[in-house]
């Protein structure tokens, strides 16, 4: 019975999508400051894991997509305002964010870890890091964690992951707390040569880092289509291909 309902819903959804296909392409917000998930390459193009996932997902859903580059701090406001229907920008699900958006199944997992100069801060327990200046992107899971657990005067909340990394390179801060994959990307780049992971990864409920796709509220058929699309690209192996392209091991 539920299956039949689902099938009917699915057909409605297809109808909805085909109607919307004629009407307008699906608008997807991306962010562009979060390598290797979303960043600007040398030729000025926005590329990354999230971008490739967006392309594959739209193809799997059978819709035409239009990507909109939005600042991280504005990204949820725009979704609520109806500027776009989806956000594919490595967004974690929090009760706060769930008030403004519905979330799909997760599409990758990561954890949070500190990066800094190993010669200065090697082999320290993270409780020993409290006196250090720590940078992270604002409105992120990591910023919530830092505000809850570390002295506020030492926390530097910057506009994006890239800004935080810049601050570390310039020596304005001692550590950056961010997603392990982005940190790895930085450490393997030329700029990251002199830095390393500091301390153990943080195991905390505030840092349960599952990335989801945010969908405009009250669009259950779109949410269902996104979830079906995610399943499809995982079954067809497209997901794994994209994964390998940016990260040498599975992050699902």
């Amino acid at each position, binding site marked *: 019975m539920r299956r039949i309902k689902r099938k009917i819903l699915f057909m409605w959804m297809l109808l909805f999508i085909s109607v919307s296909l004629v009407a307008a392409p699906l608008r997807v917000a991306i962010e562009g400051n979060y390598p290797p998930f979303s960043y600007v390459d040398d030729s000025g193009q926005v590329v990354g894991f999230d971008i490739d996932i967006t392309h594959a997902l739209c193809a799997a859903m059978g819709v035409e997509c239009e990507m909109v580059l939005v600042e991280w701090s504005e990204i949820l406001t725009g979704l609520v305002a109806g500027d776009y229907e989806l956000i594919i920008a490595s967004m974690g699900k929090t009760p706060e964010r769930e008030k403004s958006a519905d979330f799909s199944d997760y599409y990758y997992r990561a954890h949070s870890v500190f990066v800094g100069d190993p010669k200065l801060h090697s082999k320290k327990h993270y409780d020993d890091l409290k006196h250090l200046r720590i940078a992270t992107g604002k409105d992120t899971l990591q910023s919530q964690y830092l505000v809850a657990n570390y002295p506020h005067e030492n926390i530097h909340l910057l506009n994006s992951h890239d800004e935080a990394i810049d601050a570390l390179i310039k020596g304005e801060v001692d550590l950056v707390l961010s997603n392990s994959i982005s940190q*790895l990307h930085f450490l393997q780049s030329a700029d990251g040569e002199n830095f390393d992971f500091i301390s153990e990864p943080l195991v905390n409920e505030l840092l349960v880092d599952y990335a989801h796709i945010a969908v405009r509220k009250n669009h259950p058929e779109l949410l269902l289509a996104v979830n079906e699309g995610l399943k499809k690209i995982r079954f067809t192996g497209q997901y794994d291909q994209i994964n390998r392209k940016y990260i040498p091991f599975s992050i699902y």
Partner: protein
Amino acid sequence: MPLKRPAIRPKLSVTVLVASLVFVVIFLVSVGFSLGLLRGITAKTQETSQELLPELVHTHNNLLKIEQIRSYIDLIYWVQNGNLERNYRLESQVLIHSFLFENDPFLASEASNILHDIREIASIRQLQRTLQNEAIQVLSAYHEPTVIKVRGLLSALPQREIREGQMPSAFDELTSLSSFEEIEQRILFISDLNRQLDWMLIDTKARLERVSTYLNSDAALKAQTLATDIGKDIERITQYSIVFMSIVVLLFLFLFFIFKNTLLRPIQSLVAGLKAIEQQGNQTIILKPLFFKELDTIRESIEDYSGLVFRMQKTNQELENLSRIDGLTGLANRRYLDEALQEEMNRAMRHQHAIALLMIDIDHFKRLNDQYGHQVGDHCLKVIAQVIKGYSQRTGELAARFGGEEFTLILPEITHSDVWRIAEAIREECSQRVIYLENDASVSIQMTVSIGFVYQIVDANDAADILLKTADQALYQAKAAGRNCVCEG
């Protein structure tokens, strides 16, 4: 009927309606119940697979990660380039970190140990690299061709191949150098570190092996659990199906039993009762009371009908008697006499036996009537009739009132002498009867009768009226002979 007689009989139509409704309700309830159970089981099966399958996939992914970590360890061990080694170490670190978030203490602690080993391997390699560079640095102070050659050899040698006792023979020439001890100390240190690394590599791989065995048996266990759970669910579905089918079959059997006992059998007994009415003798048909009102009404009707038939038979009997009997004397009337005489003559002719016909007439009856009145006359007729009736006890014998004061007696299968004897006996008995008047007991009346009879073997030409006529003539003779006597015609 095993059912007790109910005070109020239920209506068949209402009962059938109620029973159908009850059956439908029970059926729907059991269907609903079974479906509910089935749905529950289906949901549980789905739940089982939804819970366990992702876990299986997850375990499988973890196994793949362990394999990848194994290859990272090999890469870190074999790689020469420090930058590449650092990249591999960083990647393996992120990969191993992901195990720390597993909700599995063994896996988390083993991951942490493996991470520690990898860091240690990497740092030992770094230390070896530093020591090797220092040794090369010391050698670069010398400019002899042999030393330059050895320096080239040393810088080309991978750290893992710098081992005590396995150095190229060219190194023996270094013994003469002033700083030989400095170089030898470093090479020996690298060599010791290599031995340590070999042990560590074996240890770490054994640890990986343990983790992978653990995950493998975990996956096998989960797969087994999944199979067992689904197997159990299927077994339950089978059981519930059997129970459900049994309920339906039992319900049908129960209804059939009820139907047979309350409908089929009663109807059969009603039909049998109806047929039995035809054969009923001196009593009416009585049937057992029935459960259903309609059937019981039919039963009552059959009993009523049986009673009606019984009464009609009785009435018929009475009517027939009335048509044969003389109202005053209770003897057969003239009409019946004619029938019976013909019947007896036919019988006598068939069996070739004799038949006697007696005509009995009260002497001076008219005078008696005139003197005492008709009531006394009637009484006298009754008395004589009673006497004559006393001589008609055998089968075929018949006493009849021929008309007025004249009586007839048919005596078949009798001897001639017996006829005489009986005729004399009747005459004698009649003459001895004394009748007293009701209003005057002092007056007594005595009567005499004259009897004429005919006795003969009947043959085909004899007719009943001739026989009567002959008997009548004999009576006439008896009258002529002075009355109160018997004459044979």
